[in-house]
């Protein structure tokens, strides 16, 4: 049995929070995406990445292997780890889709920010369950 009684917490301060929201608003009505870098469960930097999906960026994002490598390299340069990724859901609630689930990686934190009519709204964080059956919502903490 996985030990999942306690919600995982991701620490995201006002600066990081603002960066993610701004990126989501800038790319609206397209989805934005980027990497979360930090140590432990504290995000210390974001890396905005190009959305390279061929399926239509209004509804999809895709980080290519090359960009993934950039993100991991950047994490190493900053002396941190790659903690996960963020992306926006333009005009859609901040909860993961089946597509998100199908493409999720374990242990990564997935931040989703809802952007409604160009303005960022709810922001949530999700972690893939070990059996890949679903996501578990985590807690975003502003400290």
């Amino acid at each position, binding site marked *: 049995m996985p030990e*999942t*009684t306690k919600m995982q917490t991701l620490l995201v301060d006002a600066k990081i929070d603002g960066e993610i929201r701004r990126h989501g608003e800038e790319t609206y009505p397209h*989805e934005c*995406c980027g990497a979360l870098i930090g140590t432990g469960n504290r995000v210390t930097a974001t890396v905005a990445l190009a959305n390279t*999906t061929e*399926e*239509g960026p209004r*509804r*999809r*994002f*895709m*980080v*290519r*292997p090359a960009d*993934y*490598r950039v993100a*991991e390299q950047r*994490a190493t340069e900053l002396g941190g*780890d*790659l903690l996960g*990724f963020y*992306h926006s*859901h*333009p*005009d*859609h*609630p901040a*909860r*993961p*889709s*089946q*597509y*998100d*689930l199908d*493409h*999720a*990686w*374990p*242990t*990564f934190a*997935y931040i989703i920010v809802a952007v409604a009519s160009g303005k960022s709204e709810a922001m949530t964080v999700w972690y893939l369950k*070990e*059996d*890949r*059956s*679903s*996501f578990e*919502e985590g807690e975003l903490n502003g400290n």
Partner: protein
Amino acid sequence: MATKILIPTPLRPFTDKKDAVEANGKTVGELLADLTTKHSGLKAHLYNQEGKLRSFVNIYVNDEDIRYLQKEQTPVSAGDTVSIIPSVAGGAPTTADIGTVRLQADRELPELTKDEIKRYSRHLILPEVGMEGQRKLKAAKVLCIGAGGLGSPVAMYLAAAGVGTIGIVDFDVVDFSNLQRQILHATPDVGKPKLQSAKEKLVAMNPHVNVVTHDTALSSENALELFEPYDIIVDGTDNFPTRYLVNDACVILGKPNAYGSIFRFEGQASVFATKEGPCYRCLYPEPPPPGLVPSCAEGGVLGVLPGIIGCIQANETIKLIIGAGEPLIGRFLIFDALRMKFRELKLRKDPDCPVCGTHPTVTKLIDYEQFCGVQSSTQEAPMSGSTTEISAVDLKKRLDRGDVLKIVDVREPHEYEINRIKGSTLIPLGDIPKRYVELDPSDEIVVQCKVGGRSAKAADFLRSKGFTRVLNLTGGILDWIDKVDPSQPKY
């Protein structure tokens, strides 16, 4: 002949936190097989259920993607470095998903015929539906629980919209009292099984739809098997045991429940049991005490109300299928037909929910009659003929014999206006606690309502107040009319 494999961050928990490990093999396929044998936790994340590498898993041999080499047959040797590199993808639900639902087994989307394209043209020109959405509707399989007040509009709109397979579970026969709201059935259908009547209407409406009838009472024994082939379950039931049964079966199978319920002038709707959303038990962990909430047969329902709520259920079902808009997940809609107001309550998934919580205690279907405190028919049987009940025929015999019996009708005044037993006294159930003093405990009292439920409660109350000679009329006024006085109208 060990080859070095670089492990990306998210997979390091499965390789003892190492960013590089070694494995043996002559090809990439062999190498990965060896890797996942040594580190078994990797398997589910690298391979899908069919044993193929997941589409977002990229394997590079010395900076070259194996898709452009010989895929998994790409040869490797000791000096090579193999990297596992994630593509990170995601996004809001789109046409590639079925909302938060996934069509079972990634069913191939069927093509639309020329006739269908013409029929669905008003859908096809909506960008949110389009050809792809319409093909998803055609691929979708939806099960309606009940072909009554809610089931009627649900099934009709789903059929009209082109949902490819519509299942209906029902075992009832059309009755005149259904026609005020159950618009699938018409006057000539009275006496026919509801399934037959429903199928005729739906097929006439849209011959492209496959209507599957399940002539059975839904039970803990058959629910999982019945639900299995369907993508979405639409709950149109009118009682608590079945409602909990539908909810639990949906959670267990991971199928969304497009929920609706109606009573008098008030309706409710939500979408329960999606992966991340709450279920009916997150809202109501326990059923109300039996008898507290009367059924529609007892409490009445405005005929148009199931039309409104059923249409909301059909609407949400279609949205889940095409993946458009914001589903009614985590939101509980309450509609008041008299005030013409919709209210929306936020619902959260309860981590302690006994069915969908983190540590569920209900992992298989239970006895829902017992859970809801409803007496099953086998328990009721020995009660009849006891000294606490009297049948319509026996009551008639005793009255004819000249026995002095005080008949107390505990229904509402508007019901009393429709029909009554001659000489009865009207004291509505709600007034009994303050008006029982009007009754004489030394009298022999017969309490009566429409079918016997409310009067049983009145009898219990009177006994608790020291009345020793209280009889409940079994089957209520309806049985009285059937067996003794057919001249009176029924409702």
